[in-house]
């Protein structure tokens, strides 16, 4: 089929405001509740696009930005220049991380529904993104994520109990009950503290990268931003500063088609985010975000560029938010509830698992066993974590944590207020 994936927004405004025509043009989302979810087939196949030299000019990447880098074909085989030729062990490792993330997310959602956590955000459908990309990096590289990349922590061996304790905000939360769930921080894993205001990390990550650069260290920084958040000023700051100072940074726009209820048609007129990097002089690539191998490969290429002194890479990760925005959201109010089943990119977990089966390194039985193993690990972690308290029942971190680490040392006015709080607390 020839049809293009993205619906074109109407391009004509009738300024005269003639009969029945809105005098102000406002885009639409392609499907609303009641519509039949349908995405026309992708025009892109693995092997379409070459892998340029790492010292290429931005302009040489236009086809990569307008097209889509794929490695895993619809036949579950790999092909093309971008095939990273990973060993089955690495692939199985990646599959395991993704499965862990999905099972973990489901468990956390259950905890949220039963009041053990206040709030949750899943990576459902986007599990490959942070996991494949982080696996493609060195351990010394810095990760500056949004709430949609917690999976990177599995790659960096973060203990699940500690992650759950954060989400609960209990006594063992390393954020000390201060931020909402999913706002992880994990310095040991060079996973930089998640912040709620969307977009801010994107421009900050350039500073992180420049500091590594200034110190002469071969460290690369990777960061992510959503399709929605790319409309913030920080996106522009990041691309501009990164290109001008040649920061060793990998700038990913995770285009999962939605910003809560707002469709990406409100974030980009032509639906392509990747190409925006090119006029900044930054090599730019669009990649299938549900294709573990393509993601890995593109990220390795970008790391190589950064590490060898060729500066930033801009990547659009094309994917689909399969679930709700968060536990507070009900997407059936603004899109067909089964829509994610129609996404041409499919499910990143099944795709990798099918590939492994295809090359004879995986079986339904192994999959089932791994799933059960992870499930019980998650269950065990969950049971361990709630020992330190759940949201419904506490214990919470001491409210002393309100006053600590606001500054390196609390100044007098905080000590005074802290004392007042203690007095009041003791009187309860």
């Amino acid at each position, binding site marked *: 089929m020839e049809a293009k994936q993205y619906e074109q927004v109407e391009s004509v405004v009738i300024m005269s405001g003639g009969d029945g025509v*809105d*005098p*102000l*043009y*406002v885009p*639409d*989302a392609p499907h*609303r509740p009641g519509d039949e979810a349908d995405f026309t087939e992708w025009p892109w196949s693995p092997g379409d696009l070459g892998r340029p030299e790492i010292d290429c000019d931005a302009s040489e990447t236009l086809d990569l930005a307008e097209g889509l880098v794929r490695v895993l074909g619809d036949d579950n085989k790999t092909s093309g220049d971008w095939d990273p030729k990973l060993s089955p062990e690495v692939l199985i490792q990646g599959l395991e991380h993704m499965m862990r993330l999905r099972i973990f997310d489901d468990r956390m959602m259950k905890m949220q529904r039963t009041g053990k956590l*206040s*709030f949750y955000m899943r990576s459902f459908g986007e599990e490959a993104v942070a996991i494949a990309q982080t696996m493609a990096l060195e351990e010394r590289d810095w990760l500056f994520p949004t709430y949609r990349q917690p999976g990177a922590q599995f790659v960096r061996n973060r203990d699940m109990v500690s992650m759950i304790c954060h989400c*609960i*905000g*209990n006594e063992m*939360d390393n954020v000390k*009950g*201060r*931020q*909402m769930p999913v*706002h992880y921080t994990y310095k040991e894993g060079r996973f930089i503290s998640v*912040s*709620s*205001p*969307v*977009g801010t990390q994107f421009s900050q990550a350039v500073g992180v990268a420049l500091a590594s650069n200034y110190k002469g260290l071969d460290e690369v920084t990777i960061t992510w931003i*959503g399709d*929605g*958040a790319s*409309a*913030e*000023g920080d996106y522009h700051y990041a691309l501009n500063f990164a290109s001008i100072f040649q920061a060793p940074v990998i700038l990913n726009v995770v285009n999962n088609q939605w*910003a*809560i*209820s*707002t469709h990406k048609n*409100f*974030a980009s007129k032509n639906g392509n985010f990747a190409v925006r990097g090119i006029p900044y002089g930054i090599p730019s690539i669009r990649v299938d975000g549900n294709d573990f191998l393509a993601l890995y490969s593109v990220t390795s290429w970008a790391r190589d560029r950064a590490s060898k002194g060729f500066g930033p890479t801009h990547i659009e990760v094309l994917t689909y938010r399969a679930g709700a925005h968060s536990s*507070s959201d009900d997407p059936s*109010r*603004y899109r067909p509830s089964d829509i994610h089943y129609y996404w041409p990119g499919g499910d990143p977990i099944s795709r990798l698992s099918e590939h492994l089966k295809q090359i004879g390194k995986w079986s339904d039985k192994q999959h089932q066993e791994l799933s059960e193993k992870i499930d019980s690990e998650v269950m065990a972690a969950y049971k361990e974590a709630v020992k330190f308290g759940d*949201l419904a029942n506490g214990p*919470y*971190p*001491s*409210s002393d*944590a*309100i*006053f600590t680490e*606001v500054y390196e040392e609390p100044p007098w*006015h*905080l000590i005074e*207020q*802290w004392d007042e*709080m203690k007095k*009041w*607390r003791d*009187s*309860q």
Partner: protein
Amino acid sequence: MTNMNMVEAVNSAIDTMLSKDEDVIMFGEDVGYFGGVFRTSDGLQEKHGKHRVFDSPLSEGGIAATAFGMGINGLRPVVEIQFADYIFPAYDQIVNEMAKVRHRSGGEFWCPVTIRTPAGGGIRGGHHHSQSPESQFTHTPGLKVVYCSTPYNAKGLLISAIEDNDPVIFFEPKRCYRGPFYGDPHNVPTWSDHPEAEVPESHYKIPLGEARLAIEGDSCTVISWGAMVHVCERAIKDSGVSCDLIDLQTLVPWDMEAVVKSVAKTGRCVIVHEAPKTSGFGAEMAASIQERCFWNLESPIERVTGWDTPFPHTTEWDYMPGPDRVIAAIVRTQED
């Protein structure tokens, strides 16, 4: 009169104005098809058309700038900043631009924009879904600043804000969207049966700049705004002290007469807000009151406020002022 919660009252105000004035237009993140993450614009796109109520890109700076341009070119935009914590990317457009354009242009251009934003804590929002940044805006000449507290004043004040020819920052205490909040998270009433939730369906206004005397008494003046008004109401009842409770409603310009009259009568004063203490709007209240009522004051003006720290998540009830802290302050004012 219909019983409305605060979400419905806000919705009704916007609906009323969209119906009344075709220069009114509304946009913001998720406000269009979906009707807003707090549902304050539910149904309005369907009713008034996609060109009058629509989603915007996720860019608070862009929202404010676009509203500015529409405002100086004759429209009366009502925009939503999804959480008050996210108003800061728009700060420059608000404080350097909107606030000053009438003055800087010798009166040639002005900006009748209303920026609505849910503010304050109590929904386990942590650092960035709980802030109450009213004080910053009160320091910016050219802006009016409103903080509603009930369905009735939400609608009446919002209509006044939209009809006002100056830019208005309109704070809605999200904790009170679905019920008054008396400081006890385990006991959360709705607005049904509440007298301040009887809201006319039609157009009415509460003038900007006038406070509401929510409770009348003799021995202490309690001044508050937003969600804390209800906490104060509870505290006053439980304190056993006869107090005036002044719900400021508008912070700029604030109702000096009402405040001075009350403090002149009571000689004692407690100011309550959620935002951090240092340079909160309570500071302005205390400074002004001691200037104007110095010889009436029998005891120091007390401030009961959020701590000078970021807003916490799991321990938020140790951050937000509750009735106990307010009672203690009221009692302290009676001691001296």
